[in-house]
């Protein structure tokens, strides 16, 4: 079976999810082709087909390149070209728009595929008809940003996607429900396949559930507003005012560093809060081993693989009630869930966890690790992906 996966770029090192997925499918005997917005990368060991470039600021060159690509496509795949043309026409698009759309789809529609799968909903925009004209099934993955945020800025952006998609992969049930609330037919076949981990790679720091004298608190994630580190920092301010000895370590980089450093400075936490920047998977695991409590204060999450990894490492996890996190952590069983944007409640919960007996903490840590191993293994994920493309 031939599967084309459309991504905005070659998956980054940190996007383990895609790497696992592509590897799993290849190993299961599927022929996988990756369509990306990036140039070909040697280190990435799969068949890559970059999109034709958008040459901003060079209208003349863009014109001729587009002309050549359109003629080439018409020559190689005349029927598909015309089907796409008439399909777009039916949707009321202007000729200029249609030709642009064909250019955007040209690197895909000349291939023979059984499935055309979009790695993000947003990558399917203006490519809603591609699978249809190729006679392939259309799949799409729902992740946090493209369902939670992108439509807020672009209302109605998925209307054509909802009509054309054959099967949906969602990383959490709530994302699917959210899509339904935005117009997706609730009967659209869908499969929840969460991110996964390799449990053997995670070791537990201590097995008796005890904490150090100075509590090490950790968060791993981009420095982006949606992670709501301001709430985490405010929480630390409360802990400090209660005389608790702790440090708060943040792994990740992003555009909000200045904002967060100012929050730390304004809250008088320069000695407690550390920004580590980006770290390798190995370094993250080492830091996790030296962590007492994992914290995730996000305003919203699709699912959040960092929290899953922290549970697999056997860390006591305190997370917000962001929708994806409520499927990731079971409250009072594999961790604790706190109302988002409430530093007072996060601080209260952290203190509660610190005061707990070692046995109580250990029970939760063991539950979390056992559940991560059982329900979120790479092996299980690979199986689910295989079935995703085999059954409809």
């Amino acid at each position: 079976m031939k599967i084309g996966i459309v991504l905005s770029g070659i998956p980054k090192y940190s996007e383990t999810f895609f790497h696992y997925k592509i590897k799993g499918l290849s190993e299961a005997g599927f022929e996988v082709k990756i369509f990306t917005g990036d140039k070909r990368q040697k280190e990435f060991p799969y068949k890559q087909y970059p999109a034709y470039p958008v040459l901003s600021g060079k209208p003349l060159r863009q014109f001729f390149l587009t002309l050549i690509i359109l003629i080439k496509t018409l020559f190689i795949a005349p029927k598909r070209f015309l089907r796409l043309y008439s399909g777009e026409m039916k949707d009321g698009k202007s000729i200029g728009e249609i030709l642009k759309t064909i250019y955007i789809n040209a690197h895909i529609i000349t291939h023979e595929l059984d499935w055309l799968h979009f790695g993000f909903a947003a990558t399917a925009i203006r490519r809603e008809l591609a699978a249809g004209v190729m006679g392939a099934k259309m799949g799409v993955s729902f992740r946090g940003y493209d369902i939670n945020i992108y439509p807020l800025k672009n209302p109605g952006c998925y209307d054509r996607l909802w009509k054309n998609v054959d099967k949906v992969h969602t990383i959490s049930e709530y994302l699917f429900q959210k899509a339904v609330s935005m117009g997706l037919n609730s009967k659209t076949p869908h499969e929840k396949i969460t991110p996964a981990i390799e449990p053997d790679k995670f070791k537990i720091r201590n097995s008796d559930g005890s904490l150090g004298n100075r509590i090490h608190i950790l968060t791993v994630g981009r420095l982006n507003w949606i992670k709501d580190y301001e709430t985490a920092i405010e929480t630390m301010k409360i802990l400090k005012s209660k005389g608790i000895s702790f440090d708060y370590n943040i792994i990740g980089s992003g555009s909000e560093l200045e904002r967060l450093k100012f929050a730390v400075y304004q809250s008088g936490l320069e000695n407690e809060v550390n920004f580590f920047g980006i770290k390798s998977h190995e370094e993250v695991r080492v830091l996790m081993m030296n962590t007492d409590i994992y914290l995730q204060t996000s305003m919203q999450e699709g699912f959040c693989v960092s929290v899953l990894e922290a549970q697999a490492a056997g860390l006591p996890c305190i997370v917000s009630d962001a929708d994806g996190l409520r499927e990731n952590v079971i409250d009072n069983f594999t961790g604790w869930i706190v109302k988002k944007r409430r530093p007072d409640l996060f601080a209260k919960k952290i203190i509660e966890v610190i005061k707990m007996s070692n046995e109580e903490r250990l029970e939760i840590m063991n539950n979390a690790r056992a559940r991560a191993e059982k329900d979120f293994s790479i092996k299980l994920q690979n199986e689910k992906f295989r079935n995703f493309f085999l059954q409809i």
Partner: protein
Amino acid sequence: MSADKLKIAIYSGDIPSTTFIENLIEALSEQEFEVYLFGKLRRKVNYKENIKLFPTPQSSLRLIIFVILEGAKLFIKNKSKFNKTIKQLKNKNKNKKSFVRNLGFILPVLNNQPDIFHIQWAKTVNLNYELYNLLDCKIAVSLRGAHINYSPLNDPELKKAYEIYFPKTDGFHAVSKAIAGEAVKYGADKNKIRVIHSSVKDEFLLSNAIRKNRNDIFEIISIGRHHWKKGYHYALDAMNYLKEEGFKFNYTIIAQGDIPEEILFLLNEYRLNDHVKIIKGMEHVKLMEKLKSSDLLLLPSVEEGIANVALEAMSSGVTTLSTDCGGMNEVIHNGENGFIIPVRDPKSISGKIMEISRSDPETLLNISLNALDTIKTEFSREKQKREFSEFYNSLVDG
């Protein structure tokens, strides 16, 4: 007559500059000063005759001709200065383009040296540190907002530049006492800092406070561009609490630029679309009308120098509620001429709003009167003019 006048260069990079810098230029030109403006001419301007423009051209060809002519002028006037300038800028600029652009900035300054070169944005100290090595006049630096309050926290190079050049600066103008305190941490001499508050234009000043008739729905307004430091995300948390309390209100944010994802997300999350309206900018006259018709100006910021919009609200009889950030507590005294709450504390915002809405009209009228009084005595155009005059004169005398 111009021979006796003190020549002050007001440098912000752009001509014309931001509203408050333009206000400063106007205020200075009404006095015994001659004002020099350097930088890029962004659009046509109409200034009084004692404001002199020395703009640097922007298109490449004109810039090159400009640099050759200005260079020749300096070479004839002062050959050693010319050589020193070329040497300095060659060391500083790795590529030709930035070298020429840099020359285009510095040459007209050297050919038309003022008595005081007043840098409006502290980051210039890092970008154009050659000013310190090449100018023979006094250098003053304004201490404003982000440039002092948080940029150096995340920019080690900027921090280093402040630590080198602040001690070499002849005088500082601080927009608030709070920011003066921050600048001292980077080596600014406390005794060389003069706190001069901004002013409210006389035409905005209400002659007297008016008693307001309260509507059923409490009208709250915030004004200021979209930026994290404005704290609109905390304001929306507070609006969510108000909504949960069943409090009747409308909240209007007037802000330039696109609405950030974070704000869109919270509006959607809290389902506040019926209560909150975000307007993308407004011309000033309409803005003032909208402000005057509101029951409360909310300033939810986490960082400010002293926010002009608060001064404008106080001068037009609108109750003002501000976070305790930057120099805001130098203007507002809680319960006397407005209200102050801690930063980053949405519960305090919503609590205080409800409290204010329940206050009796007499109390609020008194607060408005006091606010008006504060503006008239502390933030008047006359006071600002006098203080700048003293500041500049002390620089050349000392």
